[in-house]
């Protein structure tokens, strides 16, 4: 069965979605990702969706779930590289993914992730669910 590779980079997990997601694939990713966070004790998850051209309501929910799950496991998550058309579709569907941090590209995403981790480390367990800064 197809799986989306999850790469470990130091304290971070890097997920690059290169194919259009179908439901089963997305559910697998969700499970794999939380397991990987547990296994590597990661502090941040970066999901690159720049090559994804179709996101439906189910996929939108999965992305929200991943954000919420990693947060309660103590990892920050950032979604990067969303295409304009995808953003418009999600907004039309009413899925504004509040609580999920977003960034324009991997570079900016990494920066955001680092600052979020610094913030959460500095202020102990103080939860912050703000998005981009």
């Amino acid at each position, binding site marked *: 069965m197809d799986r989306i590779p999850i790469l470990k980079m130091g304290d971070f997990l890097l997920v690059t979605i290169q194919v259009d997601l179908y439901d089963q694939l997305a559910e697998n990713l969700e499970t794999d990702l939380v397991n990987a966070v547990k296994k590597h004790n990661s502090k941040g998850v970066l999901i690159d969706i720049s090559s994804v051209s179709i996101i439906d309501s189910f996929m939108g929910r999965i992305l929200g779930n991943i954000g919420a799950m990693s947060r309660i496991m103590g990892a920050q998550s950032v979604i990067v590289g969303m295409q*304009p058309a995808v953003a418009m579709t*999600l*907004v039309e569907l009413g899925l504004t993914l509040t609580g999920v941090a977003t960034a*324009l590209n991997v570079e*900016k995403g990494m920066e*955001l992730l680092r600052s979020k981790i610094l913030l959460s480390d500095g202020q102990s367990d103080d939860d912050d669910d703000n998005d*981009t800064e």
Partner: protein
Amino acid sequence: MNTNQSVKILKEKKDAILELWTAKQKAEDSYFNADDQKEDSEDFAASFLNALSDSTVEDQNSKGFDKVKETLLGISVSRAKRGFSPRETGTYLLSFKEALLEVLSNEFNDPAVLYAESLKISKIIDNMTILTFEGYIKGREDIISRQTDEITEISTPVIQVWDGVVALPIIGTLDSARTQVVMENLLQQIVDTGSTIAILDISGVPAVDSLVAQHLIKTVSATRLLGAECIISGIRPEIAQIIVHLGIDLSNIITKSTLASALQTAFGMLKLEVNKKGKFINN
């Protein structure tokens, strides 16, 4: 035999017809400029008389007139662009008919024959007059569609005001179709320029109702999904009043009253600072 005759007469009297036509145009149009229309008139008269033959004179829809109609459409469109009213173009052609009929009436002595021949010519020219209206409308429609395109294009300029900051001044009413264009342009520019802050200036929007506010909120949400922050600026006092009275919640959107203060906020978010040059440099 008769048809032969009238076609023949008209062809022979080409110069006389043109002269008569010009005179009639002069009489009807006080702004008439002979040189201006001479070429058009000659072109049209020549192609009309060429097309006129035994077979075509009987049938106003004959294929023989296709070329004449083409010439006529060209004249009509160009006149429309030069600002002639459709009525003027219509009378222009009807005066041609009068000239033709006048020539015919001088040649035929039998009223019954004259009537029959005149009717045929009238039919053809009347049909063509209707065509000029079509041409006129087409000319106008071309102008309108070009202007519509231009307006849509110029009404959504995305300006890069700073490295990492884009601004979009919205001028005019925001409806669904326009919001779609605005949103598409803005998001594309954000991705292209890699900007992290977008300023949406609504000082040129005359009125804000709940629908417009909904559109604005959607645009802001979409920019956030891309990973950029959106600031709405140019909120005039009246608009602030309307928004509060309508009970629209903009609390999780950064709003500023002027573009300048929005830019200042953007600088703050980018950790930039604008300072005056030191005194020693000025003096």
